[in-house]
């Protein structure tokens, strides 16, 4: 189990007041909220921040946490001393609003299964024993190739589960999922019956997978269209040429018409993220590469061009 430095996570001193802790938490929660911050690390940061606040906002938990001392480094292998939580008085039950996914092992070991009462399931006040299972949501990251070709992915999600003592733990939930060809970023795949089990014979909820694309080294994506920038020589642009261009479906030959300028866009029909009914295209933007004039011969050629090639500065 790794030690977590909750003060460092909230970027505060160990002697911070409760007000300072609250302010730090609110500031960081706004900054790293995964709906607001598109950085891939934001979700993890947001969870860590929530966990740190859960402990430090509660004076009882904070005192217990502080007892471990300031000499621990984040990430260091940590084992709590036996009976570390003896001699404290605690309210039973804690409030839990860390969202889905639960807290770290470190938190669960110290505050989850101990006499602190632990993290209890968020939705309280449900008295009915017959209810449909909750829907679950998760984000999965796929490559552009997965969407272009369609794919089968094995994904493992962590699913919060309430154990027999009322504590939350996360268990891995492994699924084999078909990625439909031509799915675009932000779309959701609905997997019926893969959410939380229902109670009292009611149906399970559904699982919704939101699609995100991992960045691609060559291509940019805009809805269904793929964008690619192709470097061409001035003579290719001026005289026309046939060049090899990568697409998600492999290399293709692209004809550059004579008299093309930098910035000109050429379309490769159907080479984007297409489904049976909707077509995506690839757009190739030309970028003119100006060859360097290094040798005397090359410079001479440019000077000659300067004399005989009129240019329109537009």
């Amino acid at each position, binding site marked *: 189990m790794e030690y977590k430095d909750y003060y460092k996570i909230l970027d505060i001193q160990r002697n911070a007041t409760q007000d300072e802790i609250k302010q730090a938490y*609110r500031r960081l*929660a*706004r900054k790293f*909220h995964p*709906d*607001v911050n*598109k950085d891939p690390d934001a979700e993890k940061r*947001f969870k860590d921040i*929530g966990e740190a606040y859960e402990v430090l906002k509660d004076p009882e938990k904070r005192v217990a946490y502080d007892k471990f001392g300031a000499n621990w480094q984040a990430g260091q292998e940590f084992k709590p001393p036996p009976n570390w939580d003896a001699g404290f008085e605690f309210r039973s039950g804690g409030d839990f*609003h860390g*969202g889905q996914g639960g807290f770290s092992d470190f938190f669960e070991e110290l505050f989850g299964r101990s006499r602190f009462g632990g993290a209890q399931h968020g939705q309280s006040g449900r008295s009915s024993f017959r209810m449909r299972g*909750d*829907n679950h*949501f998760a984000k999965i990251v796929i490559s552009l190739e997965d969407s272009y070709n369609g794919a*089968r992915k094995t994904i493992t999600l962590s699913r919060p589960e309430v154990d027999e003592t009322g504590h939350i733990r996360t268990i891995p*939930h*492994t*699924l*084999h*999922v*078909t990625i*439909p060809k031509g*799915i675009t970023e*932000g*779309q*959701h*795949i*609905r*997997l*019926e019956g*893969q959410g939380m*089990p229902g109670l009292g014979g009611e149906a399970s*909820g*559904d699982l*919704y*997978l939101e699609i995100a694309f991992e960045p691609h080294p060559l291509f*940019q994506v*805009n809805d269904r269209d793929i*964008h690619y920038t192709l470097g061409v020589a001035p003579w290719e642009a001026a005289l026309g040429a046939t060049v090899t261009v990568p697409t998600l479906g492999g290399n293709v030959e692209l004809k550059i018409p004579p008299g093309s300028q930098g910035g000109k866009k050429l379309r490769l029909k159907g080479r984007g993220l297409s*489904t049976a009914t909707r077509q995506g295209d690839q757009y190739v933007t030309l970028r003119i590469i100006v060859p360097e004039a290094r040798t005397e011969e090359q410079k001479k050629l440019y000077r000659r061009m300067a004399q005989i090639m009129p240019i329109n500065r537009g």
Partner: protein
Amino acid sequence: MTDKLTILTGIILEEQTEYDLADICRVCNVSPDVVRDMIDEGVITPRGAVPEQWRFSALEIRRILVTRRLQRDLRINLPGCALVIELLDELEELRRLRRLL
């Protein structure tokens, strides 16, 4: 619970074009009152004049879910959520345009 050999095939939510009030409540796990409040605030805009005729697009599902998370995690009230979502849309559009430059 999960059979390891089962390959799951789902439907793309966004390609089912329309949802009625009951659908959207089920998908987002919210009550009709919550949906009504969001409509009043302009967070979502269904087609149709009266609740029985309301039809929502998948875009609205996303907006409802984001709004719920902003309310829960950052304690933003509904007008605040509406503003945040508009600004996020605008930011996303600007980022998209910048990527294409």
